[in-house]
């Protein structure tokens, strides 16, 4: 399997990719999808506005389950976001050629997923208007944030991650914006893409600098994404709750994040490839590799689940054991078993190479993983909280209509962003594809 189908030239690559952006034609699927996404975004806005008016009481959270959907959504989204960064940064460092065709889609997905993730902790706050108190900025009170809190670590991690992701994405996009600029048929578009391209000419000086900068950023992004998910894991394991207080949470969260990231990338790449007729560039080879990585992450996650489930019974902590039993059989057991089935059991069918190429099946498995990962997040939040140390304080938890609206609305919001990306930005890194051409074919 090749990274690119034969018969491609510099000219065809330029034309295919730039024209998708410049002359998309009448695309009913785009409008349909975008409007649905906008409708869900409206639901999100409604849910958030009512949240700001009435308070977090509109959600199902209580004491003892003081964290609910907002945190689960946050962890879920940030995990999904990891997919783009891993593909574009980590595989850049390993010089995996196949990443070039899918990294733009994956990175853009990262941006919108990270944005959806970044909103959640603010919505989660009882007093969201004071979120800026987490910044260490001089103030008339002479106060500082509390640097020992995993939540503050998380705040900084998200801040760094979102900023770095945007910069990395834009840096990688710059030459392609110039490509679109140079093919733009109207002055307005020339102006738009011209401003966005910032004067990129493709001089060798620029290319050399670009390569250095991109490599440096990729080298920084790779540990950053690992640290972000480790810190997200610490949001939980930094607490003393049975079911949270576990040394394996950081790698566990990285595995889960990458699994959901790959699943989401597959979920987006497969339809985009078809709709944009990108089959020459995103070949079966790409999909096969992505699926294999999905399977690998699924196995890593299975290992984490196994440890998480068995460790309480290896040790002597009765609270850990109780929480493990709640996970297996308690009122949130469905979320545990859904996570196990969707994230671990079902993906095992991808061991069969022939099934890996059945795209509808891969789509289905990926979708299952995305759902399964959300189940895992809510399982970690709810099943550890609702029955912890003091039996007298045990409680219940269930989501309300506003919880679900926020979740679905955030999906709509991220999707709307992604649709705009599809419409206005080259969906594949053209210059990287060109590099993949055999030397003999590198001519126009």
């Amino acid at each position: 399997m090749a990274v690119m189908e034969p018969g491609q030239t510099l000219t065809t690559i330029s034309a295919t990719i730039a024209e998708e952006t410049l002359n998309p034609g009448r695309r009913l699927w785009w409008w349909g999808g975008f409007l649905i996404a906008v409708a869900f975004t409206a639901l999100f806005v409604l849910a958030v506005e009512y949240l700001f008016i009435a308070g977090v009481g509109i959600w199902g959270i209580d004491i003892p389950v003081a964290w609910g959907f907002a945190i689960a959504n946050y962890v879920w989204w940030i995990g999904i976001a990891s997919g783009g960064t891993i593909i574009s940064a980590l595989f850049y460092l390993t010089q995996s050629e196949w990443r070039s065709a899918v990294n733009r889609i994956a990175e853009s997905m990262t941006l919108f997923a990270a944005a959806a993730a970044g909103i959640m902790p603010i919505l989660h706050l009882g007093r969201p208007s004071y979120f800026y108190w987490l910044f260490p900025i001089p103030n008339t009170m002479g106060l500082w944030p509390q640097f020992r809190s995993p939540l503050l670590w998380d705040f900084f991690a998200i801040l760094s991650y979102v900023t770095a992701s945007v910069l990395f994405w834009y840096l990688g996009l710059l030459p392609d914006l110039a490509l679109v600029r140079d093919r733009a048929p109207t002055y307005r578009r020339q102006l738009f893409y011209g401003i966005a391209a910032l004067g990129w000419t493709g001089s060798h000086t620029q290319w050399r600098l670009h390569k250095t900068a991109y490599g440096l950023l990729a080298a920084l992004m790779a540990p950053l994404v690992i640290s972000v998910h480790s810190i997200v894991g610490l949001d939980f394991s930094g607490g003393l709750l049975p079911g949270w207080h576990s040394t394996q949470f950081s790698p566990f969260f990285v595995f889960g994040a990458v699994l959901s990231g790959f699943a989401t990338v597959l979920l987006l790449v497969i339809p985009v490839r078809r709709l944009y007729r990108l089959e020459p560039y995103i070949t079966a080879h790409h999909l096969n590799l992505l699926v294999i990585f999905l399977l690998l992450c699924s196995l890593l996650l299975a290992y984490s689940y196994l440890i998480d489930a068995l460790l309480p019974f290896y040790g002597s902590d009765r609270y850990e054991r109780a929480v493990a039993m709640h996970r297996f059989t308690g009122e949130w057991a469905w979320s545990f078993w859904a996570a196990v089935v969707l994230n671990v059991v079902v993906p095992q069918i991808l061991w069969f190479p022939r099934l890996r190429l059945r795209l509808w099946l891969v789509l289905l498995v990926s979708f299952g993983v995305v759902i399964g990962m959300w189940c895992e997040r809510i399982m970690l939040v709810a099943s550890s909280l609702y029955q912890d140390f003091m039996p007298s304080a045990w409680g219940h938890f269930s989501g309300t209509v506003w919880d679900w609206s926020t979740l679905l609305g955030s999906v709509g919001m991220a999707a709307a962003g992604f649709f705009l990306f599809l419409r206005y930005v080259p969906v594949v890194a053209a210059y990287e594809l060109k590099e993949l051409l055999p030397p003999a074919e590198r001519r126009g």
Partner: protein
Amino acid sequence: MSGIAAEFAGEAALVAAAHRLREDGLSRIEAYAPYPVEALDEILPRPRWPLPVLVFVAGMLGLAGGFFLQWYGAAVSYPINIGGRPLASWAAFIPIAFEIAVLCAVTAGFVGFFALARLPAPYQPIQALPGFERASQDRFFLIVDAADPRFDAARVTSAVEEFAPCSIVPWPS
């Protein structure tokens, strides 16, 4: 910058032409390509970019600054007993220091790239070259600067012509 502009259809010709000109002792040469042409790295003069150093220094400053910020805030400016933990809980300060370091390094890399590349500069005179819009698509351009001490228009033209350029024009035309 003024001199001679040559347009090539393929990477190989560009590289060969550039190689030839360098052998002729010309150094003020710039190439334009739709993707980074690795072979040119060895041929065209290699400036010493301080970008990695810049990123490293920014990262280290971020790390030190991150630690200092936390230590100053938690142990000096307003020391508060938090859950019986030491005021300078250095271990707990690692994650934020790391994140600040990465943020500083990434920002330095990004800003440094634009500063060294002298971007943004939307007006690029080279774009006036006929057909230059294909430089980002499927054509390769070589510009030899007349200011080069060893510049000789005729010699350059004849040297380049060996590599079958699509066109050779004086530039600016």
